[in-house]
């Protein structure tokens, strides 16, 4: 059975490590915050200038001056600090944020990522996505395997790129792919399948070439 959105987030949470500073994108990635293992210290970076973003406030305790990058009301933690936007992106660009988990429209087998515009549709802007994928050393994509029945894991992205060769791992409802060196180039390796998902199903729903890891039958 394919993973639910929460199960995808829980799988992504296994990429967290004690002491990590992590940026979560909008959508499924936001759910990852619910699956930080007990006893692990992880600080969430919100690119509008908050390090150590806490959970949503209790009703009646919302503060208009405490929001995350999705413009949602959040709360402070004992570890929280605030910075201006330039310092916030110095953390990103300088490689100080350990992990970025975000959504995607398309990912290519060489690690290219497209998630900010669809030509012909109204362009809303890239926000901080281009800075995050360029600056954070490990980028994990959490996305549906297909969109409208069409593969999103492609040989090459057809949409304008957010970053070139930036993705480290892709988690979909069907399984997990790692992006890494294969011989003298970069390629995808399928490393995990969701329960009862067959390799044939993944092959049918994936345009990209991929190797099959040793744990996959």
């Amino acid at each position, binding site marked *: 059975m394919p993973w639910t959105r929460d199960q995808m987030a829980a799988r992504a949470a296994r990429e967290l490590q004690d002491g990590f500073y992590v940026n979560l994108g909008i959508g499924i990635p936001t759910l990852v915050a619910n699956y930080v293992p007990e006893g692990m210290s992880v600080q969430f970076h919100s690119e509008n200038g908050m390090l150590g973003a806490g959970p949503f406030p209790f009703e009646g305790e919302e503060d208009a*001056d405490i929001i995350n990058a999705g413009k949602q009301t959040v709360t402070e933690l004992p570890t929280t600090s605030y910075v201006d936007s330039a310092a916030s992106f110095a953390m990103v660009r300088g490689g100080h944020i350990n992990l970025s988990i975000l959504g995607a429209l398309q990912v290519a087998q060489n690690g290219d990522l497209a998630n900010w515009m669809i030509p012909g549709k109204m362009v809303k802007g890239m926000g901080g996505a281009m800075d995050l994928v360029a600056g954070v050393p490990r980028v994990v994509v959490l996305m549906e395997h297909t969109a409208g029945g069409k593969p999103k894991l492609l040989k090459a992205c057809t949409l304008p790129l957010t970053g070139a060769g930036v993705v480290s791992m892709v988690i979909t409802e069907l399984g997990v792919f790692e992006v890494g060196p294969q011989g003298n180039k970069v390629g995808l390796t399928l490393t995990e399948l969701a329960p009862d998902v067959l390799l044939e199903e993944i092959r049918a729903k994936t345009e990209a070439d991929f190797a099959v890891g040793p744990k996959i039958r």
Partner: protein
Amino acid sequence: MAVNKVFPDAKSALAGVLKDGMTIMAGGFGVCGIPSALIAAVRESGVKNLTCISNNAGIDTAGLGLLLETRQIKKMISSYVGENATFAKQYLAGELEIEFNPQGTLAERIRAGGAGIPAFYTATGAGTQIAEGKETKVFDGRTYVMERGLVADLAIIHAWKADPEGNLVYRKTARNFNPIMATAAKMTVVEVEDLVAPGTFDPDHIITPGIFVRRIVKLDHVEKLIEQRTVRKRT
């Protein structure tokens, strides 16, 4: 006579400053930490053909959305404008120009502009359409894109508290682009929620020193908006 930076209201704080075709930086992220009273005064003035540098374009009923409604803005330099229907309509009709900058690049362009740095290199956007037409250079095996520092004729910003010297502190995530914009304009006007007596601030805690602030207006009343009110249940 000693310099007086404190003005009685937003209109007088902007008197003699506004000109058609000028470039204005406006602080804020979404509708958090936006200079609402100063934006209202710009709208009131009727000044037009503005280029506005701001992370977002406000919403239909607040922030720079108010200047879009009156068609005072010719061009926006922003990273994300998704929450504004007026913006979308004018853009699709070809009445509004937009230059998208990655958010961190926008912030660094402003920081650099304020620090007298004409250009810098960043890996952000390398290999994407953002890099098209820009100089690139390889450092240590990685490709970087040259981005220009950004300055403006006027910065309008929001801070929590000021003293009469123009030393500023901000409140929580309402800080965002405000401190860097304060440094990057020929004229910076700040609206504040509270004006405190000289010496009130611990000098170690001042975020923006008064050198960057020319005019101050204390708000009579402060209305803060929330774009996405998200809460959790008590268990």
